[in-house]
């Protein structure tokens, strides 16, 4: 889709400005119902589009993303625009600089339409934890778009942008992509710079593309990936173009993913997709990832521990919401009042769980134990990848659920990430592609690869995408 728009722009079938205005019109018409955007950046978008049109009229070569309208999850900084992270505590925070991914998008001429809704600080699986409003699934307005990158997923699915960026800590790109019937990639840890991404859990967070097609996903990934000196965990990818025939591919299907609480229709569709691959000559092999059932509890200890440390920065002193100007007389009360009033229930819950897991007397039994189990999960994958090139699993045990269905039961909500957290804990790349529908709701197939095997993942995904 991006490549087609690119061709049309070059051939002057329409201008970048016309395209940008078309998308802005669509947002104004349809987003009242879907509510995927928190902020629109019309001025920025129009000035970027005009710049591209000027380049085209001068006959200059333009990058493939030039003039392509996109949306950005509101946890990634864009200089001069509000960045709320879906939280009251950052309601009026204006980003002082561009995230590295934004710098790269801008350099490549992408047209940024606005910032999309999310669960507060990316903590959630339905976008219902946003402090501002709930986003609806464009395919069924009574249902959630998934989360935490629900606004980005809904905007792509409803054609309110050509592509979007999300962030994924335990499944926050893949699960909403699955719920909204689009493509979402969580890159290998270190593949994309996190500079300018508001931190949730630093050993897990990655920014990823959310797109209409696998080809688009690859185009966006190629622009945002790579080493950045502002994020010392980012590395130049040793990614090579994958050139191996389908019939030499061997893909593993872990038996542990087809037991606990999976919707029967989802299981059926995933198995049919796997059969489809088999028909095309891919060798399928049952494998075992024995520590799968421990991934979710491990994730919730590690992610919340890191979050409790990362979110300590919201203290009412440096930026964001603050009670410092009230009649409070001491520093501690500024902290307590600002944080008590500024964070929503899920964020408080996770800060509490993380603080508990790191506290004296519990550190060994919780945080340290979880880090050891994380190592076991990592070794499961290491062992499996000696035999297979990639792994197929479902993205989520169910299709999109109803608004309000799980919001009162945190544990039930956490279970929608049960199939995505393992790849996050092991730092592996994983993509979600739609493999079918049940009662008109899309179901996502997850393809997990070895570290930095994004190119292979794209090739495998394309086999199905072009079906």
């Amino acid at each position, binding site marked *: 889709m991006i490549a087609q728009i690119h061709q049309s722009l070059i051939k002057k079938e329409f201008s970048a400005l016309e395209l940008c205005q078309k998308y802005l019109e669509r947002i104004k018409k349809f987003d009242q119902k879907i509510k995927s955007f928190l902020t629109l950046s019309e001025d920025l978008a129009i000035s970027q589009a005009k710049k591209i049109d000027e380049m085209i009229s001068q006959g200059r070569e333009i990058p493939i993303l030039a003039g392509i309208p996109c949306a950005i999850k509101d946890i990634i900084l864009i200089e001069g625009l509000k960045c709320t992270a879906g939280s009251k505590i950052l309601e009026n925070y204006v980003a002082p600089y561009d995230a590295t991914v934004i710098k790269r998008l801008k350099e490549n001429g992408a047209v940024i339409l606005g910032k999309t809704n999310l669960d507060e600080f990316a903590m959630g699986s339905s976008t219902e934890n946003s402090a501002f409003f709930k986003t609806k699934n464009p395919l069924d307005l009574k249902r959630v778009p998934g989360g935490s990158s629900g606004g980005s997923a809904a905007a792509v699915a409803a054609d309110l942008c050509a592509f979007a960026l999300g962030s994924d800590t335990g499944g926050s790109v893949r699960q909403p992509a699955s719920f909204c019937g689009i493509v979402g990639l969580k890159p290998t840890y270190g593949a994309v710079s996190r500079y300018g991404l508001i931190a949730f859990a630093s050993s897990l967070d990655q920014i990823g593309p959310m797109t209409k097609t696998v080809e688009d996903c690859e185009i966006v990934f190629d622009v945002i990936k790579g080493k950045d000196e502002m994020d010392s965990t980012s590395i130049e990818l040793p990614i090579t173009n994958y050139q191996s025939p389908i019939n030499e591919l061997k893909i593993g299907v872990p038996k542990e993913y087809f037991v606990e609480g999976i919707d029967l229709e989802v299981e059926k569709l995933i198995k049919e997709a796997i059969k489809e691959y088999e028909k095309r000559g891919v060798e399928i092999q049952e494998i075992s990832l024995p520590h799968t059932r421990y991934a979710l509890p491990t994730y919730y200890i590690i992610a919340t521990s890191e979050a409790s440390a990362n979110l300590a920065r919201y203290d009412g002193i*440096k930026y964001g919401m603050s009670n*410092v*100007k009230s009649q409070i007389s001491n520093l501690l009360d500024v902290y307590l009042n600002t944080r008590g009033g500024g964070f929503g229930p899920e964020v408080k819950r996770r800060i*509490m769980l993380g603080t*508990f897991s790191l506290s004296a007397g519990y550190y060994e039994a919780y945080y340290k134990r979880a880090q050891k189990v994380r190592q076991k999960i990592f070794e499961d994958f290491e062992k499996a990848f000696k035999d297979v090139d990639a792994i197929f699993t479902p993205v989520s045990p169910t299709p999109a659920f109803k608004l309000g269905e799980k919001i009162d039961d945190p544990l039930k909500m956490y279970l929608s990430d049960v199939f995505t957290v393992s790849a996050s804990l092991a730092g592996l790349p994983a993509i979600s592609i739609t493999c079918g529908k049940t009662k008109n709701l899309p179901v996502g197939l997850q393809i997990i690869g070895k570290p930095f095997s994004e190119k292979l993942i794209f090739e495998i995904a394309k086999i199905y995408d072009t079906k």
Partner: protein
Amino acid sequence: MISKDEVKHIVKLARLSLSEKEIEKMQKELSAILDYVEKLKEVDISNVEPFSMKLKNIFRKDSAQSQKPMAKSQKLIEMAPQKKENYIKVKSVLK
């Protein structure tokens, strides 16, 4: 089951403030989550090293990264809710 006093202790460590009602709810929810993570105790972790990213140290010169470092820091100080001259102002720590 985590006790109410423990919850209050964690609230203090986390620098949060919760109402009595919130504390009660938190006690129930944290207990349920902690029960769920209990199953990590089934895993044999003897002789297992904690997971690490196997990252290498990366260094840079200790010098200003931008050409106008003052302009950048000025921008950041401007964001503080209370400031005095070029400093961020805080409430007194000691009486």
